[in-house]
């Protein structure tokens, strides 16, 4: 299971980069959808196109020393409303304890592919059998800064009717709690904020944050949620991550008395 909160400029450039403009063009021909139709066959096929599009798929070059991980982005229905399933990492874990994440984990040598890893980890953590998932596709792999791990999100839909979170068998060593958040809540701009990070070691970046859910969804998980929503519900999810560039002014030694020169 992976949840990382420190990013290199890579992951965060993805949010505001031109690749999204292309996806916007692809989705502009979608009919006006409602929350009920988001998990319909029609929307699924349209979303799958975006997930497979190789031009949207920035291949991260394989470097030795980088390890791989997979996370599962589980779309489900809770009380009839399309939702996403999140986990709260246990405090017994060594990394990112107590933080919100999607189910997932490191790629094992024996795993045939990324999708298998994601499903295997989900079964270990939440007790959901892989056969219950209908795989929609994979999102582009995203690098995470501090641990140099490449994480690939796998989008899947949990079939078999409504999900009752209380009936899941959670692994107590890895998962403290599992909770769902409806897509309607996530698309509501009153619940979405943005945080601008600035550090000495990397370029500044801005990430979204989703509030009002049982737990705050921030960091890497928020980025993946944001990307998914732009694919899945482009006309319902309108939030744009605005990154403010650093303000620079040259130090002028000539005094300009009273005159103000603005560079914007």
């Amino acid at each position, binding site marked *: 299971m992976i949840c990382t*909160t420190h990013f290199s400029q890579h992951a965060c450039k993805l949010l505001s980069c031109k690749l999204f403009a292309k996806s916007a063009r692809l989705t502009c021909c979608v009919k006006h959808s409602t929350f009920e139709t988001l998990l319909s066959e029609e929307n699924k096929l349209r979303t799958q196109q975006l997930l497979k599009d190789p031009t949207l798929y920035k291949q991260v070059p394989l470097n030795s020393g980088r390890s791989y991980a997979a996370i599962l982005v589980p779309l489900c229905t809770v009380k009839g409303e399309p939702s996403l399933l999140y986990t709260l990492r246990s405090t017994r874990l060594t990394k990112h304890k107590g933080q919100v994440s999607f189910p997932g984990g490191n790629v094992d040598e024996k795993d045939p592919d990324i999708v298998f890893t994601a499903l295997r980890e989900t079964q270990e953590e939440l007790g959901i059998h892989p056969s219950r998932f209908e795989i929609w596709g994979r999102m582009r792999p995203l690098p995470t800064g501090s641990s140099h791990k490449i994480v690939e999100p796998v989008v899947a839909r949990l079939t078999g009717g409504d999900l009752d979170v209380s009936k899941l068998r959670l692994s107590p060593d890895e998962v403290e709690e599992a909770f769902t958040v409806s897509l309607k809540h996530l698309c509501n701009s009153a619940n979405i*904020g*943005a*945080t*601008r*990070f*600035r*550090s000495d070691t990397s370029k*500044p970046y*801005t990430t979204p*944050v989703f*509030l009002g859910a049982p737990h705050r969804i*921030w960091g890497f998980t928020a980025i993946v949620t944001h990307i998914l929503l732009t694919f899945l519900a482009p006309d319902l999810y309108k939030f744009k991550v*605005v990154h*403010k*560039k*650093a*303000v620079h*002014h*040259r*130090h*002028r030694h000539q*005094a300009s*008395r*009273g005159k*103000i*020169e*603005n*560079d*914007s």
Partner: protein
Amino acid sequence: MATRLISRVARLRGQRFTKISRRSLCSGKQGEGDVTSISLAEKLPGLPAAKYAQATSHSYDTHVTTLDNGLRIASENKFGQFCTVGVLLNSGSRYESAYPSGIIHFMEKLSFGSTPSWEDKDKILQALEKVGGICDCQGSRDTLVYAASARTNGLDVVMKILSDAMLRPTFPDDQMDDTRQAILFEIEAMHMDPNPEMLLMEMIHKAAYSNNSLGLPRICPEENVSVITRDHLYTYMREHHTPDNAVIAGVGIEHDKLVSLAQRYFIDDKRPVWLPEGEQWSAGAGPPKCTSQYTGGIVQVEKDLSNVSLGPTPMPELAHIVFGLESCSHKDPDFIAFCVLNMMLGGGGSFSAGGPGKGMYTRLYLNVLNRYVWIESATAYNHAYDDSGLFCIHASAHPSKIRQP
């Protein structure tokens, strides 16, 4: 003595007080009427009826007006000859992410400086002195306050000065250089100070909110002192000194008068100095809202403070630890609970228990300082902001004792 006093008071009021003997109110006397056996909830028998002062029937309400461009004006009148007016802005070190940190520190030092109407700070202070007034500017992590207090008849001057300070400072080069020097001195003093509270608060915020909003330094970092220029200040002001970001609050004045003066000096008369000709001072797109993100973390600094004592007695060599957790914002329903927790934990230095009322029965004193002698101080703090809060406990002890459980 009590009986003598009561008899004297009774005589002054023209009452005869023969029934009470001198000793009837003494606790030593036996028999009925023993004063200590009467409950504190009842009146003592035989005393004259007390006349209580009446609360004035006049109550002062708070009035709030919002102008067209978003500027909010609030006031509450009160009895007295003095008034206090302030402009409060949603501006502070937490909004400096895209700027070199330290702009608020600069603005605090340069406040009430040169403007088109007044040549320098001395002239402003002189103008205020004529109406018996003072002014001050305070910047914090999330608010910037320009305030002035003067006699009520000097409200006009006060509003003019406040509007100039907020919207029309000129920041001449010599004042900028003086400010840079002053900030460098302040940084040096902060590092040399045996009481490192300011430094520790910076560090705990940096650890709690790594690299974002509330974790950004409130004191200008040394490397930014020479980087920040007048243009930085104007760009920042253009973004943050907007009418929807500001509240004008006043106490001791009539609301209508305050509104009309605000309209005159903040909007009608002159424009902010960074706006080009023809533009109105209005709410812009505003700065992008930045939600603070509690990340948790640790920041540590190793320092040799063994030479800072000024006199012959060496200062205790102390290691300081601040331990904090996220609390809630001041808008949250749990905010009061955190304040109560802060009061109950209390604490302070082990040498200054103060006495009753100064917190000597708080938990940190009773359970920590009184039991473990090697702890020099333990204090609880609760910082609450708009969207988050930080509750922390600061403790200090000799470095060799740090590892003790």
